[in-house]
């Protein structure tokens, strides 16, 4: 049985925020402008992004509401009434609440009844895990349709007050993602029959390498002794120890390039990917810097995919973590020329602890 992505949708909160205005929204830490901001922005190439918080640090829309809006946009553009939705599969890095699962909150916001529910937990690749759960559900004949939503509200972690609450000075690894991540949600509708021009999912395949590498991106761990935020006597102590900052071990980041290329070479070897047949590449690279590196390594291996086939909206929509791939696919579908028979390769290399997920789509016309 084939599974098709028959509709897509997205939600980006508020007006786009350009590089000049970021700090006005996120705030000056101890009243001082960041010395790293320019350098990090230069490397990631992002020019605009959206935040769900305002300059007074009020949250204007919750993560669950953003997810529901993306889901609604996706359903509104589909042939399916939401009363007939059978499965809801949802991903985020951090829900509004620690418990219950994010999926429950999104279902309630969206107002869909009796669905089978799935929540994926992780970072950038969690949306692909949610997608795969839905895809296999349809493939197994369990359901005729599924709505998959990925949503992120990272900006709450980046408020100046979060950094000021930490006893020591904030290091590069703790500041790195402040100039990288932003908010938004994306949604895909899966059905077991094609509608108009849509995408058939040929396969989804993930390779996780957490057994071989240390943690590269985290929230919840104290840098000094590796303690979990839950191991402190009070949450205030955990915050003072920096355990609640979102951190990236930038020295480990090069591994993401190697592992991204490794997975692709593996898929070529298995015969799943034929480089010469790929018409479009949608790769969730966190920053422009890595695009070049991935590209060079593929070229070196003789598996280069010409640059004009690569599409991204990273630079204008921001890096929205797990929502990025869905927001990218949605904009691709609406704005980029593609024809029946085209092959689309999607890649989500996640640096959290190195989980890489790949997907191949074929454009079909009903």
């Amino acid at each position, binding site marked *: 049985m084939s599974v098709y992505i028959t509709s897509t949708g997205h939600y980006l909160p508020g007006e786009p925020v350009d590089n000049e205005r970021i700090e006005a929204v996120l705030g000056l830490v101890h009243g001082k402008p960041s010395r790293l901001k320019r350098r990090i922005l230069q490397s990631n190439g992002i020019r605009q992004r959206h935040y769900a918080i305002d300059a007074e640090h009020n949250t204007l829309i919750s993560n669950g509401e953003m997810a529901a809006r993306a889901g609604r946009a996706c359903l509104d553009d589909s042939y399916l009434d939401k009363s007939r939705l059978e499965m809801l599969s949802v991903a985020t890095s951090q829900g509004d609440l620690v418990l219950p699962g994010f999926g429950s909150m999104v279902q309630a916001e969206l107002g869909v009844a009796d669905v089978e529910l799935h929540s994926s937990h992780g970072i950038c690749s969690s949306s692909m895990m949610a997608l795969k759960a839905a895809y296999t559900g349809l493939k197994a004949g369990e359901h005729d349709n599924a709505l998959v939503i990925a949503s992120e509200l990272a900006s709450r972690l980046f408020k100046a007050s979060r950094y000021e609450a930490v006893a020591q000075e904030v290091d590069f690894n703790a500041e790195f993602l402040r100039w990288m991540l932003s908010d938004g949600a994306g949604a895909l509708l899966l059905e077991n029959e094609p509608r108009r021009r849509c995408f058939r999912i040929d396969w989804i395949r993930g390779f996780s390498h957490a057994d*071989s590498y*240390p943690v590269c991106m985290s929230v919840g761990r104290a840098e000094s002794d590796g303690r979990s935020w839950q191991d402190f006597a009070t949450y205030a102590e955990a915050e003072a120890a920096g355990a609640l900052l979102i951190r990236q071990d930038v020295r480990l980041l090069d591994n993401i390039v*190697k592992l991204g290329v*490794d997975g692709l070479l593996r898929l070529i070897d298995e015969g799943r990917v034929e480089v010469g047949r790929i018409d479009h590449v949608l790769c969730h690279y966190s920053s422009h810097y890595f695009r070049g590196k991935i590209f*060079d390594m593929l070229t070196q291996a*003789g598996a280069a995919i010409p640059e004009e086939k690569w599409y991204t909206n990273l630079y204008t929509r921001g890096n929205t973590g797990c929502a990025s791939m869905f927001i990218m696919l949605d904009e691709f579908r609406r704005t980029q020329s593609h024809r029946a028979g085209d092959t689309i390769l999607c890649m989500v290399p996640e640096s959290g602890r190195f989980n890489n997920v790949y997907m191949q789509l074929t454009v079909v016309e009903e």
Partner: protein
Amino acid sequence: MESKVATQLGQECLQGLMRVWFDFERQLGRVPIIQRLERGRFTREDYRNLLLHLRQQVIEGARWITRGASSFERDYADVRSEVIGHAKEEHRDYEMLEADFVAAGGALEEIRAGQRNAGSEALHAFMMYRASQPNPVDLIGAMWIIEGLGQKMASDWARRIDEATEGDGRYTCFMRYHGENDDAHLDKLYTLIDRVCRTPEQQQAILRTARVVARLYALQLEEIEHG
């Protein structure tokens, strides 16, 4: 940037070698002493221990390369020259390694009296065996792993070791030195891949030797915990 290898078989071979390398890096990530290094929980004693075990293989390394060189027959005279050049450059590397061991607080007699661990024995035996075969083109696979490791030591391990042990670079010369000529070495390897990977059998042999060397090298590092 261009594709480094020109022929179709060579390209497939390079893709295979890259995958073997990536897999090797993951194997390294599971080795206890390397995990400690990557987590910054690595002592000077760990470092001396690492050198002690590496030295027994490094000192033998020159032997399989020279043995391999002599196994190339007349049709491979150009390859033989390359391999001899490589052997000449590296056959006294162990002296630098010994000096690092001493600079890191070790005694020269100790490292000189060191024995090969189980992994080093297996690696050495395998290399000498392969190098003794006529026209051992698969040695390229071994060189790929050893060269890659040299680069990893220079670009990553040396810095981590100095950071974790509060060193100033004085006792990580061996590892750092390996980075100096890396690009040139790698370019030579790419050329060699095109030169010696001409049949599917040769391609298979190169990849197999690379895989075996990677596994045995990782074993050698695992064995550090056992003596």
